[in-house]
């Protein structure tokens, strides 16, 4: 059972890692997008970071909804509504909950992905954040099914996310700005997949410490 203080630690770590990787994400977006993914994400997660105090002591649903609304109302671009929708859909699953279990984790993750698919009219293989998130989710799910604990499950999920990021280098973008490049998008890793990987890694880092 995971508490909201764990969640807040994760959110703090997500903010830290996103802000630290601002340059990297922007640089990746420079190659196949419009040089702003790191700027967008750092802006959003700085705003999230500022709300950490206000989230203290609130339930899982409230915290995730606050993150969602903060991202939606500060980021803009494509990643703002996409990540915002993901967190919003995850929030619905755990409304009012003080602690959550593995089933909640699976449901949240599932809903988040469905939210992105819906909002982005996109799916795995389009060279987007989904190419990190979907494999990570599937790995997580089977690890849980195999009875692994969250530490191991998220460790494996992180590895799959990273593989997903690597995979984005090999495919043509079909969604987002990178899709305008056609063949030229091959060879470059997707910035959004990379930020998704960073978010999952952020979860993992906190779990490992606890």
């Amino acid at each position: 059972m995971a508490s909201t203080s764990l969640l807040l630690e994760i959110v703090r770590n997500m903010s830290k890692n996103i802000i630290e990787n601002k340059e990297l994400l922007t640089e990746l977006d420079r190659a196949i997008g419009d040089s702003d993914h790191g700027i967008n994400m750092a802006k959003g997660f700085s705003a999230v970071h500022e709300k950490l105090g206000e989230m203290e002591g609130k339930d899982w649903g409230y915290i995730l909804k606050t993150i969602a609304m903060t991202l939606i109302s500060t980021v803009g671009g494509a990643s703002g509504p996409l990540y915002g929708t993901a967190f919003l859909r995850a929030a619905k699953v755990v409304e009012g909950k003080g602690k959550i279990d593995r089933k909640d984790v699976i449901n949240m993750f599932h809903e988040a992905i469905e939210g992105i698919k819906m909002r982005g009219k996109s799916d795995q293989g389009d060279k987007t954040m989904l190419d990190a998130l979907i494999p990570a989710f599937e790995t997580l799910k089977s690890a849980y099914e195999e009875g692994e604990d969250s530490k191991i499950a998220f460790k494996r999920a992180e590895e799959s996310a990273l593989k997903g990021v690597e995979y984005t280098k090999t495919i043509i973008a079909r969604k987002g700005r990178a899709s305008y490049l056609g063949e030229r998008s091959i060879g470059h890793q997707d910035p959004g997949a990379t930020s998704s990987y960073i978010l999952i890694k952020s979860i993992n880092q906190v779990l490992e410490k606890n």
Partner: protein
Amino acid sequence: MKKIINDRDRVVEEMLQGMVKAHPEFIKRLEGSNVVVRKDAPVKGKVALISGGGSGHEPSHGGFVGLGMLDGAVAGEVFTSPTPEEVYKGIKAVDGGKGVLLIIKNYTGDVMNFEMAAEMAELEGIKVEKVIVNDDVAVEDSTYTVGRRGIAGTILVHKIAGAAAERGLDLLEVKRVAEKAIENVRSMGMSLTPCIVPAAGKPSFEIGEDEMEIGLGIHGEPGTHKEKIKTAREITTILLDRIIRDKRFVNEEVAVLVNGLGGTPLMELYIVNREAHKILEDNGIKVYKTLVGNYMTSLEMAGVSISLLKLDEELKGLLDDRANTPAFKQI
């Protein structure tokens, strides 16, 4: 990065302040937002038009707010779609009771954020319709793609829809003519240099001293391919060929927009215009109206796009209507 700015993270805020100071007779800033609206907004009994998107395309879109064009423009960060909240504020501020039309350029971010804003406004009982401009033929439009981008042709859609709204047409009628304009407009661009997003601080792509980028958009993104630099004639031919291949303009009357991307001098735009007129004539396409200038830019990028809008009597009339905005005036 050679730019005349103060703080690379505050360019949009400071630009908007400077813009409003420059044009107080046309526009005002909506307090606490990055939205500029007509000085007389909301105009009662008139359908209102909202456009916007990332900044860096000046005079788009704030420069087209005024009589006969937009009622409001929502500015995001450089090349980043504004948030739903910002767009929502714009919608609320311009609604004069006859509803609001959103003119959105076809980018994932813009579409998502504007649509979320529309949902928010509708919850408050405001009638909102949207059209999505997708004039850029550099991008393939198929079920496997996100479709063509919206680039400089958007200006012509603003003009047409703005005139219709000013004439007092109702929301669905304004939407109809906007969609007709979108259906009839095609564009294609190229560039000689990248641009630098201030907050990123680096050129948006690398390009050789003798190369040009063909088929790029307006966000500093690379184009579909690089070529050796060619003459104005050859470049114009490349752009117009793609446009004419995409849609039938032959034997039609058109409006031509030769649009500078920000760093290209007017001299070169006029030279491109000369070539464009020659090529159109050779193809039996009659030019009804020509616009040459920096309408939809990409920061300091050197380059040009050409747009053609196929005209019928209705569109001609709307195009000829009066307009009075900072960057588009027609007497």
